[in-house]
C-alpha cells in the first residue's frame, strides 16, 4: 500500500469501489456538510469534497474535508489548479494530510467564466497533470515541486479525472495514459450516459494495458428530469447525452421522471460492472445526495466492504 487511504484498500481488495460527493455550502454552515455526508456515509468508500465547483465560492474543500474526517469518514480532497498557485496547493496538501486526509483528486477546474466571479483571474500556474506529478513526488520522493526536501511528506492516494466524451476522442486514452504516467492511482470519469462510447473507450484503454496500471471509477449521475437531461446535453461542455436517453426521460410523466433517472443510473452501473477495467463507480448525485443509498443498494453494491 502506498497510503492509508480506505479507497486504496478497497480497490486493492479487488472489490468494486464506490465514491460519491459532497458539494460544500456557500456559507459558514458546517452542519450542512455533516448532513450531506451523513446521507451517503454507509454507502461509499470515500466522499469527494468539491473545490469551488463551477467556479463559485464555497467553503474550502480542505475545511469541509476536515469536518467529514472528524465524523470518522473518508473525505477525498478535490483540488483545482484554477484558484491557487503551486505554493498554496502544496501547503494545503500538507495541511489536509496533517488533518488526516489521505486521498485527493487533482483537477484543472471549470473556467472562472462559468462562476459568479467571472472578473477573477484564473491562476493555472500548473495544470492537472503537473499537479498529479507534484503530489506523487511529494509522496514518493519527499520533495516539494521546487526541489527541496519535505520533512515528513504527505502520503496521498492520488486521483485524476478523465472525460472519455470530450474532443478529440482519439486523444482521450492518451491523455489518460499521461495522467497515469504522471502518477495517478485512480481515475474518476465524467458522467457516463453514452455507454456504447464509454465501452469503446474502455476497450482502447485495456488494449494498452492501462487497466493494469490504474483503478478507473465510472462516473454516474442520476437525472432528475428531462429538463436536466437536455440541459446537460446542450449546455454542459464535454457532456454526451444521447437522444435515446432524452427520449426515455421524456417518455414518462413529470412525476415519474426522477424515478426513471434513478433507474437509468442503476441500469448503467449494472451494465458497466461487467466492463473490463471498471474498478468501481463515482456517483455524482448533484444536490440529490439522499438518492445515493438507493442507487448503491439496487445496483448490488451494498453493503460496502468492512476493512
Amino acid at each position, binding site marked *: 500500500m502506498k497510503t492509508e487511504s480506505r479507497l486504496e484498500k478497497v480497490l486493492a481488495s479487488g472489490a468494486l469501489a464506490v465514491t460519491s460527493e459532497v458539494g460544500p455550502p456557500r456559507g459558514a454552515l458546517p452542519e450542512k456538510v455533516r448532513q450531506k455526508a451523513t446521507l451517503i456515509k454507509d454507502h461509499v468508500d470515500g466522499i469527494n469534497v468539491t473545490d469551488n465547483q463551477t467556479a463559485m465560492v464555497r467553503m474550502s474543500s480542505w475545511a469541509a474535508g476536515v469536518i467529514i474526517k472528524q465524523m470518522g469518514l473518508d473525505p477525498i480532497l478535490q483540488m483545482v489548479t484554477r484558484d491557487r498557485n503551486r505554493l498554496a496547493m502544496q501547503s494545503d496538501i500538507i495541511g489536509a494530510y496533517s488533518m488526516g486526509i489521505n486521498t485527493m483528486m487533482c483537477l484543472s477546474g471549470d473556467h472562472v467564466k462559468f462562476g459568479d466571479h467571472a472578473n477573477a483571474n484564473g491562476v493555472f500556474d*500548473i495544470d492537472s497533470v503537473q499537479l498529479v506529478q507534484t503530489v506523487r513526488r511529494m509522496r514518493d520522493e519527499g520533495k516539494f515541486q521546487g526541489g527541496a526536501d519535505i520533512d515528513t511528506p504527505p502520503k496521498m492516494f492520488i486521483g485524476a479525472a478523465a472525460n472519455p466524451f470530450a474532443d478529440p476522442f482519439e486523444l482521450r486514452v492518451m491523455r489518460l495514459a499521461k495522467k497515469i504516467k504522471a502518477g495517478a492511482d485512480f481515475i474518476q470519469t465524467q458522467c457516463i450516459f453514452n455507454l456504447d462510447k464509454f465501452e469503446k473507450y474502455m476497450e482502447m484503454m485495456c488494449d494498452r494495458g492501462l487497466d493494469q496500471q490504474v483503478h478507473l471509477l465510472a462516473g454516474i449521475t442520476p437525472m432528475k428530469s428531462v429538463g436536466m437531461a437536455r440541459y446537460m446535453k446542450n449546455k454542459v461542455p464535454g457532456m454526451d447525452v444521447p437522444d435515446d436517453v432524452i427520449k426515455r426521460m421524456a417518455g414518462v410523466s413529470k412525476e415519474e421522471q426522477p424515478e426513471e433517472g434513478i433507474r437509468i443510473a442503476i441500469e448503467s452501473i449494472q451494465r458497466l460492472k461487467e466492463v473490463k477495467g471498471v474498478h468501481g463507480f463515482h456517483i455524482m448525485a448533484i444536490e440529490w445526495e439522499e438518492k445515493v443509498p438507493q442507487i448503491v443498494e439496487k445496483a448490488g453494491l451494498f453493503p460496502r466492504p468492512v476493512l
Partner: protein
Amino acid sequence: MITAEQKPLKEIIEYISPYNRILLVGCNECVTVCAAGGRKEVGLLASALHLNCLKQGKTIEIKELTLERQCDPEYVEELVSEIGRVDAIVSMACGCGVQSVAARYKETPVFPAVNTKFMGASVAQGIWEERCKGCGDCMLGITGGICPVARCSKHLLNGPCGGTSYGMCEISPDVECAWCLIWERLKALGMEKRYEEIMEAKDWRPAGGGGPRKIIREDLSL
C-alpha cells in the same frame, strides 16, 4: 504585433476636459496596422474631439502628429518643439509608446487614447486574434506551432481539459480549443507520440513572474 482598440470617446473627453491645447500623437507601427492609432485614426479622433467641443460651445486646439515609432526615444524626441505649446498629450500608441512619451516629457500630462490588447496576428480582414503571451520561453517547437500558453483558456500544457466540444473551447463556441489544434497538427506532422511526453511545470520567471523584464544586448549598446 501589439494590437489595440480606441478607448470610448467619453473617457478620452474626460481626460482632456481641463485642457485647451492638445498634442495628439499617433504611431506608425503596430497601432497603424490594426487601425487603432495611426495617422488616419489621429485625424478621425481629432475631428471627433473638435465636434464634441463645438457641441459644448468650446474650442480646443489639437496638434496632430504621428511618430515613426512611439516606443523609441529617438522618435519621441521629435515632439520636443511642441511640448511648450500644449497643455496635455494624448497618445494613440500602445502602452509602451504612452510610457515612452511620459518618461521623456515629465511636466506634461499624457493620456492614453487606446487600450492595448494583446500580441496577435491578423486572421482575416479586420480580425485579430491573440497568439503570444510573451512567456519568454517559446515552446512552439514542441507544440506543433500552436501556443497553449496564449491559446488555451487555462494555459494547460499537457492536453485538453474535459470541456472541449466539437473542437471548440468550453468558454465559447467562437474560440478554438488550442489542444485540438495542436493534436491535429501533430497528427499531420506524424508526431502523435510527442503528446504523451509530460510537459513539466512551467518556469514563469521569464514570463514576468520574476518581475519586470529587460533585455540587455551588449553587442548593440553604445
